[in-house]
C-alpha cells in the first residue's frame, strides 16, 4: 500500500516559487484593475417610494434586444438581503437580458439601503405596501388585470404571501431558490437561529448590520469562503476576464443592505422559528396568509447544491398551494450559480420564458 501523500522537496520548492510569483503578480494586478461595473441592461425608474424604486428594463440595450412582444409583464421581487443587480450582473450573465431578448417586459423592485429611519418597516409595509403598490403600478401601465411575478429567495417567500393575499393580480407565479419549509434538517442557518432571542437582538441592534449578516453567511462554510476561495484566486490571476468576474461577484456578495429591524424580527420569528409559511398561521399586517388561494400556474426553481436554501426547503411549495398547474425546475448548481453560471444562462431564463409563453 502506498502512502497517501507523495511530496518531493524540490517539487514543493517549485510549487512555492510559482505561488509566490502568482501572489505578487496578483496583488499588483488586483490593485491596477479599474473598478468593475455591474448591471448591464438599460432601465428606467417608473415608480418610487421611500428608498424603494421600481424599474422597468427598457429595450434600448443593444440591437439584439427586441421590443417586448409579450403582453403580460414580469415583475421580479428580489430578497432584502442582497442587491438585485445579481439578475443583471454582466453582459453574459444576465437573466434579465435573456428574458428581454425573449420578448418579455421586465420590471424589478430595488429595495434600496434601509437606514436607521427605516427600522420600523415591517413585513406588512413590504408586502401589503411596497409589493402591492408596485404590482398595481405595473398593472396600470400595461393595462392588464394580472401580471407574472418572479420572486427570488426571500423575495420568493414574499411573493407567495403577496399572491395568496391578492391572487387576482397574479397571472403566473414563479419562485426561484425560495424557502418554504424553513426547518429542513440540512438548513444550517435556520438551525442556528432557533434558540436566538430575536426580540433582544433587534431591540439591541435596531437594523441588522449588513456586515453581521455577511459574516453569518461566511461562517456557514468558513474554510472555503474565508480562506480557500482566496488561495484559489491565484489560479485565475493571469486571466483578466475571470478576474473581473470574480471581483464582480465579490462586489455583489459584500454590497449588502442593512436589514430593517422590524421586518427582520417578523421574518425570523414567523418564517424561521415558527415555520408558519409551511405549517400555517402566518399573518402579514393582520391578514391571514392562505397559500391554497394560489391557484394560478406556479413554476418553482431551486438549486440542487444550495447551502442557503436547501432543495427540500423549496420543494415544500408544492404541498401548500392550491394550484393544479405546478412545475418544478431543479438546477444543478448552488444558490449563486443559479443566476450567474454558464449553465444557468443556458437553462434557467429559457425555461422561465418558455413556461410563461405557454401560459399567456
Amino acid at each position, binding site marked *: 500500500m502506498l502512502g497517501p501523500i507523495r*511530496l518531493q522537496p524540490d517539487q514543493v520548492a517549485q510549487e512555492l516559487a510559482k505561488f509566490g*510569483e502568482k501572489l505578487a503578480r496578483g*496583488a499588483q494586478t488586483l490593485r491596477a484593475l479599474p473598478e468593475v461595473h455591474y448591471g448591464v441592461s438599460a432601465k428606467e425608474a417608473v415608480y418610487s417610494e421611500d428608498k424603494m424604486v421600481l424599474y422597468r428594463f427598457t429595450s434600448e440595450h443593444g440591437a439584439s434586444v427586441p421590443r417586448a412582444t409579450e403582453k403580460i409583464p414580469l415583475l421580479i421581487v428580489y430578497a432584502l438581503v442582497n442587491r438585485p443587480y445579481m439578475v443583471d450582473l454582466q453582459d453574459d450573465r444576465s437573466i434579465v437580458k435573456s428574458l428581454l431578448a425573449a420578448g418579455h417586459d421586465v420590471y424589478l423592485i430595488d429595495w434600496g439601503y434601509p437606514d436607521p429611519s427605516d427600522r420600523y418597516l415591517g413585513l406588512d409595509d413590504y408586502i401589503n405596501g411596497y409589493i402591492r403598490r408596485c404590482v398595481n403600478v405595473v398593472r396600470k401601465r400595461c393595462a392588464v388585470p394580472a401580471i407574472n411575478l418572479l420572486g427570488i429567495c426571500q423575495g420568493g417567500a414574499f411573493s407567495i404571501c403577496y399572491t395568496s393575499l391578492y391572487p387576482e393580480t397574479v397571472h403566473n407565479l414563479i419562485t426561484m431558490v425560495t424557502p418554504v419549509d424553513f426547518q429542513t434538517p440540512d438548513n444550517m442557518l435556520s438551525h442556528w437561529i432557533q434558540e436566538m432571542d430575536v426580540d*433582544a437582538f433587534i431591540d439591541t441592534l435596531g437594523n441588522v448590520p449588513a456586515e453581521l449578516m455577511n459574516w453569518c453567511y461566511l461562517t456557514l462554510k468558513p474554510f472555503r469562503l474565508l480562506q480557500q476561495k482566496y488561495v484559489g484566486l491565484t489560479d485565475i490571476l493571469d486571466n483578466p476576464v475571470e478576474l473581473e468576474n470574480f471581483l464582480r461577484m465579490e462586489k455583489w456578495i459584500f454590497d449588502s443592505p442593512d436589514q430593517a429591524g422590524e421586518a427582520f424580527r417578523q421574518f425570523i420569528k414567523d418564517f424561521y422559528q415558527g415555520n408558519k409559511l409551511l405549517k400555517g398561521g402566518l399573518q402579514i399586517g393582520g391578514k391571514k396568509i392562505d397559500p391554497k388561494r394560489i391557484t394560478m400556474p406556479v413554476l418553482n426553481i431551486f438549486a440542487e447544491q444550495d447551502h442557503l436554501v436547501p432543495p427540500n426547503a423549496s420543494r415544500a411549495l408544492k404541498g401548500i398551494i392550491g394550484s393544479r398547474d405546478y412545475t418544478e425546475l431543479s438546477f444543478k448548481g448552488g444558490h449563486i450559480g443559479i443566476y450567474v453560471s454558464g449553465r444557468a444562462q443556458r437553462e434557467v431564463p429559457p425555461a422561465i420564458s418558455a413556461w410563461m409563453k405557454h401560459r399567456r
Partner: protein
Amino acid sequence: MSAKTKAPESIQDWQALHQQWWSSLLEGAKQYTPPAGFNAADPLKGFGEVFGHQQGGQNNAAVERFLGGSKQFLEWVQGLSAQIAARGGIPGKVDDWSALFKQSAGPMFEGNNPFLHLFQGLGSDGARGLEQFMAGMPNPADAFKGEMKSMLAMPVFGHTREQQERAQQLGTAYMEYQEAMAAYNAQMLRASKLSYEKLELKLAEREEPGRQLVSLRAVYDLWIDAAEDAYAEVALSAEFRSAYGNLVNRQMRMRQLMQAEVERQTAQFGMPTRTELNSVHQRMQDMRRRMRELEDRFETADSTAAPAARTVAPTSAARRKAVPSKQKRKVVALPVKTAATKVAKKTQKKVAKKIAMKVAIKVKPAATKSVKPGKSRTSKSSNSANKSTSARRQLNRLA
C-alpha cells in the same frame, strides 16, 4: 511557472526546504515585488510588507481578503514544513500524517485552534461577527470568578443604589457572556478535533494507487474538505445550536446594558439618544403608513367614482328624454315620494359628490384656487372638491 522564474535547485531535503521555503516564494515573486521588507527570522511577519506594499489608500477589500487568505495558507505551509523537517522526511502512513498535522497545529490546538484562528484572522471591518465582539479584552473576573459572582449578587443600598445595581447587572452580563463565549469556543474545538478524524478517513482513501496527493495545494484542499465536513457536522448539532443561541443572547443582553449606560451619560450632556431617535423613527413610520392608507383611500375613491360616472350619465340622459316637460315631471314626482325615490336621490347626490371629488383631485392646485365657492352653480360640488383638495394638501405636507 514562467520561464523567468526558477526555484532554488539546491533544495533536496526537507530541512533545507523549511529553511529556504520563503526564499523559494520570493524567488517567484521578485520580478513583481521588490525584496524590501523581507524578514529572514520570521518571514510571515514580513508578508504584508512584501506583498502588501503600496496598500494604504489604494488598497481595497478584495486585495485585503486575497492577501489574508494567502497568508493563512502560507502559515499552514510553514507549520507543515516545520514538522516534516523535524521528522527528517515525509511520513508514509495515514496515522503518521494525522499526527504530523496535529503537531503542526500546536499542542492539541488549545492555544491555536485553527477554527478560531481562521475567524479571528479574517475579522476585518468587512467581516466582523459575534465572535469578534470585545475580542482581545481580558476578563478581569477570570481570576476570581466565584468571588466576583457572589459580590455581584450582594444587595445594594444608599444614595447610589440604582447606579450600583446597574453596575452589578453589567458585571453579571459580562461574566455570562464570557461563559457563553467559552462554551462556543468549546464547540469550535470539538470541530477541530473532529476534522482530524475526517482527515484520516480522507487520507486513507488516497492510499489507493493513482490517488496519491503530489502537491501542497492538493494536501491543503484535502485538509479544507475535512475541516468543512467536521464543522458542518458540529454546526448542525443540538449542542452547537444551544451554544450559538446563548452566545448571541448574552451578547445582546450585555450590549443593551452598555447602550443604556452610554445613553445615561450622553443625555447628561444634552446629546440625542438612541431611545429618542427610535421614538422619532417609530412616529415617522406610523405617519408613513397613515399617509399610504389615505392615498389608498383616494385611489379607491377614484376607481369607484369612474364606473359610477359611466352608469350615471346614461341615466340622466334617459331621464331628460323620458320626461318631456317640467310640469309633467312635477306632477309625477311631487306626490309620490316613496322610500325608493329618496334612496335614489341620495345615491345621485353621492355619485355627484364623488365625481366632483374626482374632478377636484385631477385639477391642478392653481386651477382649483380660481373656483370661488358659492358663486358657481356647482357650489356644493366645489365645496366637496375643496375639501378633497385640502386633504391632498395635508397629504403633501405629510409627505
